[in-house]
Each structure stands twice: as structure tokens, then as C-alpha cells.
């Protein structure tokens, strides 16, 4: 019951947020000079009359409120506007590209946490010995490398070794492959961008796991457990980790958003057909509705990430349940 009320309230907030984001994106795009047809004007083969007719057709000269209202109508129809460059509704385009981005980020997120939690716990358990020192130094070094550089280094590796694809998502002739070959082909393309994302996100998560665990391990109740002779693995995994979980679960939600924005860069560098390249093209060609669509899709994924994290928190921590009931 409490969970339901919480969910309804959060969904309502999310809708308001998406609404505000769309409005602001509209306004900011309005402030930038030029539009999709500006470049056509430079082309001597297209007459000014044709351009004027197109402007009329797309309704580019209408005042902002009218265009926003028209866009909202199209949202209600489930189209999210019309792409000038692709000459089709934005929604299906977003879905195709968003699916690919989601595949990348979810895999990267799962892998990041799978690796980061054990590393963070280990380094917190042995802070002054070699595991703690090595992991700390490693994460700092990795964290100071820009995402772009990591992606480029990985590409270099792919070119040198030919173990991985240097771009794209599927090979030619994917349709004719057997299931095994398809999986292999997907992995061939998939591994590098995922590794780039994991390496970019890993240090932050490891540091947070380390910090949360280190703080909990200082607590007197840990000392009591050790005094009772509770084995160290049980102290760490059954006691310290669940107690440290709250800030980490919140980070889990936020890290989804971070991964998403990192993913946009990695996708462009590794030509992964996700939202990243779509966003870049849309920016260059001033394909405004695609732009707004990508921004909204990213916001939606970020909101969903935090919502999932909050739901897990609500489920795992009885104290939060009591507070939201009050």
C-alpha cells in the first residue's frame, strides 16, 4: 500500500520532470540561430520559393507556443514529432536506437557492479595491505583517464589484435547466420563498447563501495562481532555489506544516468547504432524533434534508474518504509 502510494507519487514527479525538460529543450533550441532548412539556402540548386514552401509545410515560422502545442499533440499520438532528416515519426526511430543503447548500458552496468562490489569490499577489508593499496592506486589511475582516451586505446587494441570489431553492431549477412554464429558476432561487436563503459565507470563505483564499507567496518558492532569470533567473511558479507548498501543503492540509480551519458560518447567513437550518434547527427542537422526526443529518452532512463534504486531501497530498508508512511 505504502509502496503503491510511493510509486504513484514518483510517477507523477517523473511526468512533471519530463514536461519541464521538454519545455526547456524547446526554449534553448529556439535560442540557437538557424534551423534545419538553413543549410539548404546555401545550395544554389534549391530555389528560395521551395524553401519558403517547406518552411510553411513544417510550420517553422509559427510562434513557439503554437509549435510546442503541435508537438504535444504529436506526443499524444505517440509520434513525438517528425524527423526532418529521416522523414518519419521520431518515436519508432528512438525505440530502435534506444534499444541498442539500453542493451549496452544495462550490460555495462551489470558488469561494473559485479566487478566493483568484490573489489571495493576487498580493498576496504585490507586497507593497509597490498590489496587495498593496489586497488586504490588502480582506481585513481583509471579514473584520471578520460572516457574518450579509454575508448580510443581500446580501439587501438582492436585494430592491432583483430580480436574485436572496431565499430558497428552486426556484421553483413547477420540474417543468414545460425544462432551460435549470431551470438558470436554480437559479442565480437559488443565487447569493446561494454568494456570501455565498464572501465570508465568502475573507479567511481569501487571508490564508493570502499568508502561505504570502510565507514561501516569502523562501527562498534563490527568490533563486537569480531570479539565473538565471527569469521571475517561473514562479518564482511553478512553484516558490513548489507549495512553499507543504502548509499550504494542510491548510487546504483545515479550511475545509470552517468553510464548513459558516457555511453553517448562511446557510441559515437565506436559507431554503435544507439542514441549517441543519433543525437550528434540531430545536433549538426538541427533536427529539433529528434534532439528533443533523445533528451527526453535519456531523462526517462535516468528517472527509471533512480526509481528502480528507490524501489530496492524501500524493499530492503524497513526504516525508509516507516518514514514514507509517516
Amino acid at each position: 500500500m505504502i509502496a503503491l502510494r510511493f510509486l504513484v507519487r514518483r510517477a507523477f514527479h517523473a511526468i512533471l520532470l519530463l514536461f519541464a525538460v521538454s519545455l526547456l529543450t524547446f526554449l534553448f533550441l529556439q535560442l540557437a540561430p538557424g534551423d534545419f532548412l538553413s543549410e539548404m539556402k546555401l545550395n544554389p540548386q534549391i530555389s528560395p520559393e521551395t524553401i519558403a514552401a517547406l518552411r510553411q509545410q513544417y510550420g517553422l515560422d509559427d510562434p513557439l507556443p503554437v509549435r510546442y502545442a503541435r508537438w504535444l499533440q504529436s506526443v499524444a499520438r505517440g509520434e513525438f514529432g517528425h524527423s526532418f532528416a529521416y522523414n518519419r515519426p521520431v518515436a519508432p526511430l528512438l525505440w530502435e536506437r534506444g534499444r541498442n543503447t539500453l542493451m549496452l548500458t544495462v550490460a555495462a552496468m551489470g558488469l561494473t557492479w559485479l566487478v566493483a562490489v568484490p573489489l571495493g569490499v576487498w580493498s576496504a577489508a585490507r586497507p593497509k595491505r597490498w590489496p587495498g593499496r593496489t586497488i586504490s592506486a588502480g582506481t585513481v589511475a583509471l579514473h584520471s583517464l578520460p572516457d574518450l582516451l579509454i575508448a580510443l586505446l581500446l580501439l587501438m587494441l582492436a585494430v592491432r589484435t583483430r580480436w574485436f570489431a572496431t565499430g558497428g553492431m552486426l556484421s553483413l549477412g547477420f540474417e543468414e547466420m545460425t544462432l551460435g554464429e549470431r551470438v558470436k558476432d554480437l559479442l565480437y561487436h559488443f565487447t569493446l563498447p561494454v568494456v570501455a563503459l565498464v572501465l570508465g565507470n568502475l573507479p567511481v563505483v569501487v571508490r564508493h563501495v570502499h568508502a561505504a564499507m570502510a565507514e561501516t567496518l569502523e562501527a562498534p558492532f563490527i568490533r563486537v562481532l569480531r570479539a565473538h569470533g565471527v569469521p571475517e567473511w561473514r562479518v564482511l558479507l553478512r553484516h558490513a555489506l548489507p549495512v553499507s548498501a543504502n548509499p550504494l543503492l542510491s548510487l546504483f540509480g545515479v550511475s545509470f544516468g552517468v553510464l548513459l551519458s558516457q555511453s553517448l560518447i562511446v557510441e559515437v567513437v565506436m559507431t554503435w547504432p544507439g542514441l549517441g550518434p543519433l543525437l550528434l547527427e540531430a545536433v549538426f542537422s538541427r533536427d529539433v524533434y529528434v534532439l528533443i526526443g533523445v533528451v527526453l529518452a535519456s531523462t526517462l532512463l535516468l528517472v527509471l534508474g533512480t526509481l528502480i534504486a528507490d524501489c530496492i531501497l524501500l524493499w530492503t530498508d524497513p526504516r525508509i518504509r516507516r518514514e514514507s508512511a509517516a
Partner: protein
Amino acid sequence: MAAEPVAPLIEARRLRKSFVKRHPLRGNAQAVAALDEVTFTVSSGSIVGVVGESGSGKSTLARAITMLQPPDSGELWFAGSDLCRLGPGALRRVRPQLQVLFQDSATAFNPGFTALEAGEEPLRLQGMDKVARRSRVLELFRQVGIAEAAAQRSVHSFSGGQKQRLAIARALTVSPKLLVLDETFSGQDLSLRAQIVNLLLDLRPEKGLTYVVISHDLAFVGQFCDEIVVMHRGRIVESGTASQVLRAPQHEQTQALLRSASLLTGWSRPAS
């Protein structure tokens, strides 16, 4: 009451422990001796008070004799073995016999556990089955005055005094020989303090317990300890029976502690 000469439960010889203190800006390290050649004996069944001002090393001593923070050097004899020389496995088997009660019982429990789970945790290691564990914990809860109905509640829903009782019950689940009370009574109001002290005094003969009471309050410790050890800058500067130390304090540190105690509480030295 004066302690009769009985076999020592724990014997510490020349314990040393120093901490490295780093200057926050220059970063140069400086060793601070928290325990400096500390030698003392705790007789079985006695109550020994360890008093001293803040930073005198009394809490380090508490953590050293329970091996929570092993000393750098020295010997610590308990039940026929030197704890400082034991391997991790052997040490873990001895640990249950040396229990500590901390000042802040609120942070002494895993916040996600119920009272019963917290009480059962130490017993899991001893291979006791669930039914036996539960009945033992509930029996101890009853002895410290926690109702069986409350055992399923989360630990943080208990009051401060009840948490202290839970902590005592939990420490007793593993039948310890020694219970170190590390500033357990600081910051408690007087009636609560009296209740807990009475509870501990009642439990002592029944469970065959020995207490080491760490405190900065000499007057309070003097009321129920057999022996008193006064620490100053990592060293034991005075020790003896409670009446000796209270009536004829030799060291100026002891005298200072007594003066501050009587200033604060209006307590006066017993007439000799």
C-alpha cells in the same frame, strides 16, 4: 570487599602499543605510546577498575586484553596460552571468552537485525541448532529483563537502557570468562547506571564472571571494584585494592582524579 588470593584469569606482561600520529600538513610521523610496558593481573572472579583521564591509554588496554587491537609487543596469558602468540584460528576459538561492552550500545548492533537475530549470531559459530540457540538467547533475555515478546523487534526500536541489557545478554550467550566494560556507564543517567550495575553484580556469581571496568570516574569505580589500576600516559602509575587507592592515593594523577570526582558529584573520600 577485598579480593582473596585466587588464580589469575588474565596476566599481562610488558604490553606495548603505539600509534603513529601524522602531522596533518607536514605529514611527518610521530609514534605515540598508548601502552607503555603495562604489566598487571586480573584475578578470577574479581572486579578490576581501570581509571585515567582521556588519552591515558585505558581504552587501548581494554582493546588489547580482548585482542581486538593486539598489542605491539608483550605477553598476554589467558587460560594457559599467550594470546599474542596464537594463530588466527586458535585465537578465534578463545575470543568468545573475552567479551566487551561498549559505551554506545546504539551502535553496537547491526541496525538491520532483530534483537533475537543479534543474540543468536555469536552462537551460530558454535554449531548450535536453531531451537537450542533460540531458547538460550530467550533465557538470557529473560535474565536481563527483556520480554520474550520484544525479541522479534528490530534492535533500534529499543530504548538506550534496553539496548544495554541486550548487549549484556548477547555477550553472555557465549559464556565468557571476562567481560570488559569499556566506558559502559558514561553518559547514562544515575538510575539507569544503578540498574545496570546491579544487574551485572547479580550475574557475576551466577555466570562465574570477571569484570574489568574502564572508566574516567574514579569515585564511581571505587564503589564496586575490588581493585583499582590508575593509568596516565600509557603507564600504570598506581594500583591496589579499592580502599587503599581511594583512602591513600599515592600518585598525583590519582589525587587529581579524586579531586575532580568530588568536585563534580559532591562525593567525599571515605573517612580513614
